[in-house]
């Protein structure tokens, strides 16, 4: 799936390789039962080890937008690595 139609180009350093991109709205900072805020999270899943320069704080370009990599975590059997992408 990641290499076929479900994947899309992700650039980290000099490498551009297909990854899976999810853009999800989530309710955050709920307090006292009151509604919180709806924030957007941009999550990229790439093959573990595919990007030699993937590290916290490096620039990850997805859909033309440069983000900073935050919270890099392997998933499931370790074949995929999830990266939380932040603008600032």
């Amino acid at each position, binding site marked *: 799936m990641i290499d076929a139609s479900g994947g899309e180009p992700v650039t980290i350093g000099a490498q551009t390789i297909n990854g899976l991109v999810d853009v999800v709205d989530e309710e955050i*900072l709920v307090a*006292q039962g009151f509604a*919180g*805020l709806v924030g*957007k999270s941009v999550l990229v899943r790439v093959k573990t080890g595919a990007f030699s320069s993937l590290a916290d704080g490096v620039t990850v370009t997805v859909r033309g937008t440069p983000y900073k990599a935050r919270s890099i975590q392997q998933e499931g059997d370790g074949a995929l690595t999830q990266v939380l992408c*932040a603008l600032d």
Partner: protein
Amino acid sequence: MPNTKRDEVTDLIVTLLGTTPPGGVPVAKRGFLFDMSAASVPAITVFPENDDLELRGDGKGAPDITKHRVAIRVEVRAKSDTTHSADQNAELMLNWIEKTLNGRIPTDRTGPFHIMHIDSIEWDYEQMEHGYVLVKNKLIVELQNKYNDPNAWT
């Protein structure tokens, strides 16, 4: 029927915070955010959180006075930008809140039981596409009213 003194004081806090705030500080609102989108940040919201009651009298029959220790929550929500973190962007609002409310007498009444002060401040963070922070100010207001008449000062 008039509301309680607790309600009047909560409204007064909203009014004080909303009166000519400095640039970059939003007008405070009573209650919670109706617009939950990220565009509603920065925001300041005010609501009562807790009220500890103490009854006072001469010990014969019904008490004369209800003493209240009201905790009012003043919440600040902020997000990061390219130059400042979310907590840095919240500090302008925290400065305004402390300057405006600490030591303020909530009514025309004077006395040690009628001065408000910030008792604690707590930060919660969330990292999304931007960094977000929720800062919870616990404001204590001590006041007292006639027993059985929460709209009548003593």
